[in-house]
């Protein structure tokens, strides 16, 4: 299955989601290709950090981008059980190219107006790419959710009005462990004394993507 973690807003936590899903997917024995299609190359840095610290890395990380990404992924697809593509927070040829071959498009949104205002642009990309890739399923969720207040619920209710993607009801909180674990080259599920809530939240997303969205 090919999963793209994207959107058109920077700083929504795309790389954190992509790397955590990669670790979790490969830990159950799946042969995973993590494709870094973001110019910031943060996913590659995560894998490099892990290698540098001598932690076992069961997946393969490559950097691809631009219009050719589509052809390269189609060529690599038979060699892997799962491909996870981390695209940057801009509407680029890389993002569109990835969506032309994707099964699932994961859209993390922060519960803030600037993030929610990108809905129109995201809708256009999805509807464009669905004309060519009719198997594409887009899901959005609130990432870095606020611990209190009504912003999360308000953002969810706006996202749920969109017809191009499904908005998930669960959220992933703005938890420190997501930041600290990546620095250690680990997923939140691998750290010593894991934050149970963070593990539960990322597992909920993982289960949704790899069980309920199975193609």
């Amino acid at each position, binding site marked *: 299955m090919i999963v793209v973690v994207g959107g058109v807003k920077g700083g929504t936590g795309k790389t954190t989601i992509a790397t955590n899903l990669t670790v979790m997917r490969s830990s159950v024995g799946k042969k995973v290709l993590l494709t870094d299609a973001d110019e910031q190359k943060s996913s590659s840095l995560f894998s490099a950090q892990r290698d540098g610290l001598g932690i076992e890395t069961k997946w393969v990380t490559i950097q691809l981008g*631009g*219009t050719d990404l589509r052809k390269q992924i189609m060529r690599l697809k038979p060699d892997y059980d799962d491909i996870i593509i981390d695209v940057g927070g801009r509407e*680029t040829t890389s*993002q569109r190219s990835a969506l032309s071959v994707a099964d699932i498009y994961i859209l993390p949104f922060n519960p803030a107006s600037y993030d929610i205002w990108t809905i129109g642009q995201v809708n256009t990309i999805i509807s464009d*790419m669905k004309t060519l890739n009719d198997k594409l399923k887009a899901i959005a969720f609130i990432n870095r959710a606020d611990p209190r207040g009504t912003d999360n619920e308000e953002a969810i209710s706006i996202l749920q009005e969109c017809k191009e993607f499904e908005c998930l009801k669960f959220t992933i909180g703005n938890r420190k462990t997501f930041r600290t674990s990546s620095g250690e080259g680990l997923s939140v599920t691998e750290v010593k004394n894991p934050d149970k809530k963070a593990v539960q939240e990322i597992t909920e997303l993982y289960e949704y993507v790899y069980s309920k969205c199975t193609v």
Partner: protein
Amino acid sequence: MVVRKPIEKEKKTEADFEKMIAKGALVHEDIKPKEDKKNAHINFRIPSDMLNNVDEALKERVGMSRNAWILEAIHEKLKKVEQR
């Protein structure tokens, strides 16, 4: 007549994909010269304040060279000319 051939789904060509993908902004990989392409060298003059603006814009494109940024700008301009 009640027996008809099934309607064939319109086949999507690689050109259809390329056209849709090209709606996105170009990235470094789109503009870097292919190994088999020869590069031409030119003398290029640019007002220093414009160059400062380029360098400022470059800060948002981590890992991109100044040369690649200028090439991208030329690509975008050529694309507009082609669409006229």
